[in-house]
């Protein structure tokens, strides 16, 4: 049963990645010109490190929560 669950999860990840790749090309095609050709006007360069920081924050969420719990007044 767990094997079936893992297989389904794997297929789900495959499908998400397969659909994300063309979408990412479509979203980022103005990048081939210049920042001004895109409504984000270069904000992606800020978004990328922020996304990495967000992922790191999620990764350490338990530690972050415990840190705040330890340092809260209660």
């Amino acid at each position, binding site marked *: 049963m767990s094997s079936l669950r*893992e297989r389904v*999860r*794997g*297929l789900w*990840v*495959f*499908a*998400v*990645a*397969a*659909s*994300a*790749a*063309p979408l990412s*090309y*479509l979203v*980022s*095609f*103005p*990048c*081939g*010109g*210049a*920042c001004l050709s*895109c409504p984000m006007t*270069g904000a*992606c*360069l800020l978004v*990328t*490190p922020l996304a*990495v920081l967000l*992922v*790191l924050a999620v*990764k350490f969420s338990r530690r972050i929560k415990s840190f705040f719990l330890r340092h809260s007044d209660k």
Partner: protein
Amino acid sequence: MTVRETLSKNKWRYLALALGFFLFVGPFALAVRGVYFILDNQAAATLHSFCFRMPISWIFEGRFYSIVSSLVMAGFGFSVIVISIFLGPLFCGWLCPVGAISEGLSRAIPIPNKYRLRIKDPGLTSMLRYGFLAGFVLVGMLTGYSLVESSELSTVCCRYCASSQLQNLASAVFGDPLTLQYWHTGAIIVLVAWLVIGGVFMVGGRGWCLFFCPLGALSGLAHKLGAKLGFLRMEHDASKCKNCKECSDKCMMWAIKSDKTVERTLCMNCKECANRCPYGSYSLKWGRKNVKPS
């Protein structure tokens, strides 16, 4: 393991990776120059003389002749994949300058692995890798069969290519700054994804190779086939394993499963696991008879 020990144990691979830069990246591109000399081809020899990505797109764009008409490109792609069947993805692990630079950057910047990203399940990593490959092929099919009318989509291959950016950077450093004219925001995104996210912020520094290199993905499939047929592959001996997890922590391709066996579609026979394992649990094996289930 200290820096000196790491350098000592991996010296042949590091030397090969350094050699790879001079073999494939212009203005040196010694391998391409050699082939061009034999073929009496006067074209400039660069990393662009063969392409890691476009041929896959061309197949579906009805431009297969573009690959076949270029002996260098056809020969390169064919050789890398055929060698992967017999000896594993040696190009990825031992020669590729793109992977070497992000891996080197990862080692040079001393961020602890706990602050770096990785997926612990090699099965999921593999599915992501082949999902991205399928998406890349899908784009080729959509544009190749004119299902999508977009000149932008049909040029994604060069625009979002790390080896293309590496060649531009190398050309600029070695005396041709005009190549920087080719740079654009897409190039910066590629550099960030290849060197910063895939290099510095992913365990092992091979994030680009894992998720965005179609040649690496195809080499992984070829290696899986080759390993099933009994050709060269990394094997784990469970009887020697003490479950110290040194191998799975240090594997650049995140290829070590929870039972310490090797996910073939990710492994590039770099021998990092064998070098790191204090108990000698990993070794390269050849032939079908000695295969023992771990």
